């Protein structure tokens, strides 16, 4: 007969785990500890067929509890981590790494460094090869801490040189850290992955020592190598580097183009649009318009006065020149159904006017062109502006009135 309701070891431990889970979710650390105390004897039983065994459970749960519990000290935490390291050799490096993260969060840089060095020297038969990825990470973080030390030494050096000292010892140390850091960081960024912090630090090192070629190569690889996962930051870093290097607008634009494709709402789109607007090439200017419209599709940009001023400027310029009105028409086509409610409602008009007059000015200009002088937004803002006797609003009103036929052509 089936006794499914029979209470056995496995069921009671499952129940125990669900109580722990509830306690953790409600941040009841004492209660979680209470149940964990009852759970730990699972270690004495074989769970080799389960996906996650008790030793991993205990490691993860115990870490959470000890990290958050008010009565737990760092000493206890470290002691626990050391025990966990002995529990599962297959997880050794992972536990080391997470331990290091906790130490760093707690500001214990030196201890973290010690642990990383120790872990680096760990060897355990075939496990060493199996845990190769974790080892690389450990080396990388050790390299990162070396970079951090390098950075400190560099600042000391700069201070001293300002004061007129020259400190050979500090300089030697600094170079030493550089070498160690560079080797490790270079290794990790060879592997496809998201290594933002490592890349930034490595590039910083290279730039300081004047190896711009290597830096450029690294950044190009990071941004353009298809084996690496698509990462907007890679393009941002490349762009910033090129800018620092004083590269041509052309290369800057090509760097930002991909960023626009991946993240049209990125904050650098303003810079991008600015560059594109000024370009002599028609295609680039066209792209500029596309870029700024795309950015303003996003809610986060609604109140960005700078973005609106970019759009306003470009729209105004097009209207005055009476060339390329079809550009506006194309961009407006897919937006005319929802932009009015999204950006140009009467409520927004009031609010924008109250909170940010220059924002309302730019928006009113755009609204007036796209929706005509009778649109709610323009009418309200221009009226308010004229009432307040602000000159530029009077100018705005005149401008829009004069160019009203444009609206008709756009909307048609």
């Amino acid at each position, binding site marked *: 007969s089936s*006794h499914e309701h*029979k209470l056995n*070891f496995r069921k009671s431990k499952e*129940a125990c785990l669900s109580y722990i889970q509830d306690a953790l979710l409600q941040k009841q650390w004492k209660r979680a500890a*209470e149940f964990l105390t009852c759970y730990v004897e699972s*270690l004495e*039983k*074989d769970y080799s067929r389960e996906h996650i065994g008790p030793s991993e459970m205990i490691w993860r749960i115990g870490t959470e509890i000890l990290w958050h519990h008010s009565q737990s000290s760092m000493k206890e935490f470290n002691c626990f981590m050391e025990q966990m390291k002995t529990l599962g050799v297959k997880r050794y490096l992972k536990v080391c790494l997470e331990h290091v993260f906790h130490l760093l969060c707690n500001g214990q840089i030196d201890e973290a460094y010690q642990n990383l060095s120790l872990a680096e020297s760990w060897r355990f038969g075939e496990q060493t090869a199996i845990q190769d990825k974790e080892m690389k990470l450990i080396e990388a973080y050790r390299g990162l801490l070396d970079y951090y030390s390098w950075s400190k030494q560099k600042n000391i050096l700069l201070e001293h040189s300002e004061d007129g000292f020259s400190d050979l010892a500090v300089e030697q140390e600094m170079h030493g850290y550089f070498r160690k850091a560079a080797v490790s960081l270079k290794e990790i960024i060879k592997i496809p992955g998201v290594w933002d912090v490592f890349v930034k630090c490595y590039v910083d090192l290279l730039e300081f020592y004047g190896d711009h070629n290597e830096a450029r190569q690294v950044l190009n690889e990071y941004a353009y190598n298809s084996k690496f996962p698509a990462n907007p930051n890679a393009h941002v870093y490349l762009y910033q580097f090129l800018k620092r290097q004083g590269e041509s607008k052309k290369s800057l634009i090509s760097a930002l183009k991909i960023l626009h494709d991946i993240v049209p709402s990125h904050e650098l789109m303003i810079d991008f649009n600015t560059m594109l607007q000024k370009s002599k090439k028609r295609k680039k200017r066209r792209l500029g318009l596309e870029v700024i419209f795309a950015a303003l599709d996003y809610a986060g940009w609604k109140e960005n006065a700078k973005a609106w001023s970019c759009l306003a400027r470009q729209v105004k310029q097009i209207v005055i020149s009476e060339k390329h009105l079809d550009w506006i028409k194309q961009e407006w086509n897919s937006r005319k159904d929802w932009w009015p409610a999204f950006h140009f409602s009467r409520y927004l008009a009031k609010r924008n006017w109250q909170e940010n007059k220059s924002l309302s000015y730019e928006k009113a200009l755009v609204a007036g062109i796209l929706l005509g002088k009778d649109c709610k937004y323009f009418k309200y803002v221009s009226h308010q502006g004229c009432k307040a006797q602000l000159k530029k609003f009077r100018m705005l009103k005149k401008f829009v009135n004069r160019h009203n036929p444009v609206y008709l052509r756009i909307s048609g």
Partner: protein
Amino acid sequence: RDFNERCAQCSEVNWGLTDGGRFYCRSCHHVTERTREVVNTDFITNSRVQTISRGSRKQEENDGGCEWYICEGFQLVLKKQAEALEALGVCPQMKDEILCNFWRCYLQKSKQAYCKRPAGETVKALSVCESSTDVDSDPERPSLLHLLSLSESEGDLPTDCSFASSASKVSESTSVYSGSVDGSLYLMKNQKEKLRMTMPMTLSFCYMALLWLREPITLSELLRFVVEGHIPYLNVFQHFPEKMKLCGLDLRIFCVESWPVYEEVFNKMHELAAFLDLPRFPDITDSCLLHPDMLCMKYLMEANLPDELHNWTCRVVKKIGIGEVDFLTLMPGNKSTRKVKYDVLAAAIIVVVLKLLFLLDDHYEWLLSEFAEERNKNNAEGGPYFEFKKWYEVVKQSLDVEQKKLDEERAKCLWRCEKPLFYSVKNKSKVLKRRQMVVNLQNQFGKLSGSVRRAEKPNPSTFQLSWSEENTDGSCFHGHSLKGVLQEKCGLLTAMNPDYWLCTVKLCNEKLCGHLAHYREVEFPQSYHFVLGLFSFLLRIQPSYIHDEVCMIEHKLFNKKLYKKLKYNTVLRK
């Protein structure tokens, strides 16, 4: 005991045995040099049992262990359990005579002792010096893996990592199969005829002895005491003497990782009674505490129901004849009578009475309650009328609290003990290391738990819920009156409720599908579920068991009506 020499010092004949197996004079404590050849009597200090016949014993010098047989282990377990029961108030007769004799009888009938060993059943010690090649070449001897994979009702057992799962390890671990002499043989024998001893069966023995003595401890109570730790069950083996080394297959037999279930223990007990050819058990009369009238009174109190309901339970009992001596007394081997579960029966009677008086159709009982409430508000004379609604609220609240506590206790159950278990000597150090780590972690997180973790187990008590009449908040319903739901007809008190709904029109064949009826949540009124749930909690059994008994009672009670209906139907068809 067979030693009849006079003591050298005081000339008395009053011998006892030291732990070392030597005789010592009880009067003057002079220890002789004479030792028993057999270690067995160390374990039994009170019986007239003869030693289990076997060959000479050898002391193993390497680890201080001795040869021991599985049934000796069980004997120890039973002794411990009997002692615990004695401590709970059971008469000493149980341990000294009844249980002892049952056990002897069992050993005899199962040919484990007190008889000539049948030819061909020599016990092969599958311990030291057996090499792996033997295992493969001998087709009759089962491989270790096979023995380990025999299905046990206990579920998973402590397996040391890849011990059972990797075939390649067999050769390494053949050094010790079991600490006992006959561990492997025990698991291997075809046990269908011989009723192999298991841990749950020890409780069957206990219950059988309790029933023979008509002690008031019901099976559900016994099992509850086991779970609460008042009766040794989990990890009893830690009380085995040092010399009895437990390892390998012994673990399969003595280490439990699940709590025994009522049905399991109950059925086994009846099998056992039949197997031992026991005569009719002592009569269960109406003065006996296991009689439905008595148990109903107890459960009514615990369920916080009015004492007046007792009249009704007695009436029902009388009407359907389940208070008769012949119905209640156990006659082993009689397959025609239904086996009586005294506790479940009593609970079911109460449920039926509640249905009789309150209908429990999720409407009528609330209606009656409203009337009672009205009456109680306006007229407090003569004591309060019983209000179902109030009772429900009070009991539900307590029940929820207790159920929550119980659920948490279940999750916090600790299955392991200090005595380490290992399958083979090779794994010993690993096991000990793990144990150490577990203890360390328990200490570390135990400190962070805040409250002191239950230092002692709660005192054993018959009542899990208690209600005091002294409470002024009116949360005790014992003294409440049923006047609100009764009426007088021809000088007899009957229920105002004219209706009754049967849990099932037709009873299933228990032998075919295991149950008399099938309890599925959706089909019954919530009040019925609640009442079943209440007793399910008190007795620690599944509601479906109580439901079965309810069906059985109803069918007895309304037998005539059902019979008529059936007859009517068949007449129609003709």
